[in-house]
């Protein structure tokens, strides 16, 4: 018979209170294979009955070494790794990364590419929030919402597949523009989604927003005050639900977000319900942006003309010697940006997603660091969960909307 290796209390002695050592409270290991820790998060929960005394998040079960791996690849090839960080926000990750490169080498992006980037990242935000509304309703055992939300997410993923050939790992935005222009069906598909989606959000809201059982499970649970949120560097909907109207799309607009008319939903309660309301309203706001961007989608090229950094169109390669040389150089050696370091950030569905990129003048980045919102937001989990019941813990984890790929990069 194989020996069972039990975790001794000594190994976690520094993490739990004196009561647990004496056997007054129970130390419960939740995850990494627990059904509602949203991936492979492990929580060491100290329980007094069912009341939570303390929660210690234990991360690292999904560590993929993305940051380090990116240093071993050329700038273009490193981009595919960004998809794997926050797998619910692939377009947003691509956007943050290409924006950093564009900032580093001062590359201009044509307006059509900018508008398409906005449409796709906003659709991605909706898709991410759909996964969130589905899974966090499922955590409260409202199981049908999950499948309704995934039905609409499928429509968005179909649009992504139409553009990039991939449902999730898109790598569609490239330094200086897009991989290629969107197909002709794109506009109709997006328009169809914009037409259908508001009714579907009403459907989710009908099941949740005023449901007494849902209110009972979410109102007043996991309160995060404005001060605590700011102290811990919480961003995104979690911060806005605590009463801070901070959204990078408004605060420091990028990709022409300043031309679109949209609101930043905020709430002051800071509880699970407020975070729910903020995200649901954000879906409607994102839809407004998509609608506006689609209405004034300009025509023109989708890639910068700077051939030192952006590959030439396929049609030129057969007829132009320079184009062939550029293409060959770009895909074998890669481009060499000037020395320097940049930080660029976008508003991901979870908060501020930033990339710090350091270049030593070689075709490979010297250092890539990701400032990921889930990592910072997870820090407040012990504050939110203390004193609540174990049933609330799953509601709280759902409400801060973490993605483990985003935490362990």
């Amino acid at each position, binding site marked *: 018979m194989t020996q069972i290796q039990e975790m001794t209390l000594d190994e976690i002695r520094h993490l739990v209170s004196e009561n647990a050592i004496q056997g007054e409270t129970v130390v419960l290991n939740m995850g990494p294979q627990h059904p*509602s820790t949203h991936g492979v998060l492990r929580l060491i929960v100290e329980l007094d009955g069912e009341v939570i005394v303390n929660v210690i998040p234990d991360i690292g079960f999904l560590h993929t070494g993305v940051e380090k791996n990116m240093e071993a690849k050329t700038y273009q090839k490193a981009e595919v790794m960004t998809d794997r960080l926050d797998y619910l926000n692939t377009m947003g990750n691509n956007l943050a990364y290409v924006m950093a490169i564009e900032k580093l080498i001062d590359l201009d992006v044509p307006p059509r590419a900018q508008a398409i980037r906005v449409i796709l990242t906003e659709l991605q935000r909706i898709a991410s929030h759909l996964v969130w509304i589905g899974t966090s309703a499922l955590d409260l*055992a409202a*199981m049908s919402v999950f499948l*309704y939300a995934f*039905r609409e997410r499928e429509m968005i993923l179909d649009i992504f597949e139409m553009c990039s050939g991939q449902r999730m790992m898109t790598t569609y935005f490239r330094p200086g523009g897009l991989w290629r222009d969107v197909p002709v069906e794109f506009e109709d598909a997006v328009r169809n989604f914009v037409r259908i989606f508001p009714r579907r959000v009403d459907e989710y809201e009908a*099941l949740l927003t005023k449901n007494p059982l849902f209110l*009972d499970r979410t*109102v007043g649970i996991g309160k995060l005050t404005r001060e605590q949120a700011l102290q811990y560097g919480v961003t995104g909907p979690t911060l806005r639900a605590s009463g801070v109207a901070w959204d990078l799309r408004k605060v420091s607009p990028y990709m022409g977000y300043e031309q679109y008319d949209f609101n930043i939903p905020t709430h002051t309660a800071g509880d699970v319900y407020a975070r729910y309301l903020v995200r649901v309203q954000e879906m409607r706001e994102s839809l407004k942006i998509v609608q506006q961007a689609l209405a004034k989608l300009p025509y023109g090229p989708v890639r910068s003309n700077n051939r030192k950094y952006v590959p030439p169109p396929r049609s030129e390669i057969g007829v132009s010697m320079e184009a062939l040389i550029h293409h060959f150089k770009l895909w074998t050696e890669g481009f060499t940006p000037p020395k320097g370091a940049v930080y660029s950030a976008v508003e991901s569905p979870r908060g501020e997603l930033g990339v710090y990129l350091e270049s030593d003048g070689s075709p490979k980045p010297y250092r890539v660091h990701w400032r990921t919102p889930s990592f910072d937001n997870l820090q407040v989990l012990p504050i939110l969960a203390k004193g609540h019941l174990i*049933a609330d813990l*799953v509601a709280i984890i759902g409400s801060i909307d973490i993605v483990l790929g985003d935490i362990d990069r």
Partner: protein
Amino acid sequence: MDYALLIEWTLKSLILLLVLLGGFAYLTLYERKALARIQVRIGPNRAGPWGILQPVADGIKLIFKEEFTPASADKLLFFLAPLITVVPALVIAAVVPWGPPVEIFGRRVTLQVADLNVGVLYVMAIASISVYGIVLAGWASNNKYAMLGGMRSSAQMISYELALGLAFVTAILLADSMQLSEIVAAQRNVWFVVLQPVGAAIFLIATLAEVNRAPFDMPEAEQELTAGYHTEYSGMKFALFFMAEYDKMIVVSALAASLFFGGYWGPGVERFPWLGPVYMAIKVIILLFGMIWVRATLPRIRYDRLMSLGWKVLFPLALAVAFITALGILLEQLWLVPLLSLLAAFLTSLLVTRAIWRKVYA
């Protein structure tokens, strides 16, 4: 000794047992299909036409799975717990009348295994036993999640038995009998759900808690306690817990039908008594659909709120409703009963809604 009577009992028990076991298997399929339809899915459709062989496939899979017993579990209790849970679920069904008495080979046969004169008390007593199985399963597994599930189950039981008992009382008062066949017979002209709608509603809510169904599925809340009390169970032992839950669903639906929805009565039963079981089956299927629908729609209520709902809302309301029923019967003014009960229920729901909204706007 009347041997024919012995044979009659044996046959009736056997048939009932087979119906319950088959019903359990197909209830799982029914639930999965109904849930799938509600959730814009298709549901099982691979095993046989419309997936009708799915329960068979599930059964075969569970039989051949390894029966795993944790090294540090209490072996005896771990083995006994599923039995303690499943046997009461099957035994309760004995007192449910499935149809009016019929003539078979010149014998007058009641479509009921045992027509106890305290049938309702019997149901209450037996139904409470199965919670021991759940608590013992949680305890014997030596697993923290299972333990929490077991403890929740006992707390839930205490909170709901009283409201359930008082809901029974309203039906007993209206029928003037504790014998289930009499209670059904008394509903020949008017169903008790008409006379006592609130009692029926309390009964349905409390039975959801009794059989651990959503939104009261605390003991196995999979999102919180992985699988609750049966976390460590596998193979047929797990299947027994599953069977207990689904058989109890069938039985409490049959009980609800008998107590409040006119049992086997329906148009034409007097002339063709064999229509009785058909009407009963239809009523049970409709009530089961209600349970499945609730599961698909509602979030789970929190464990402490469940207790306050049981003690602070359902219990006083059930008490008031039982009092109103008794008052109506005493004054011989039966029309007062539904009127006053609905008023009481309305006031209660108003208070509950106000409490929740006060919390929202706090």
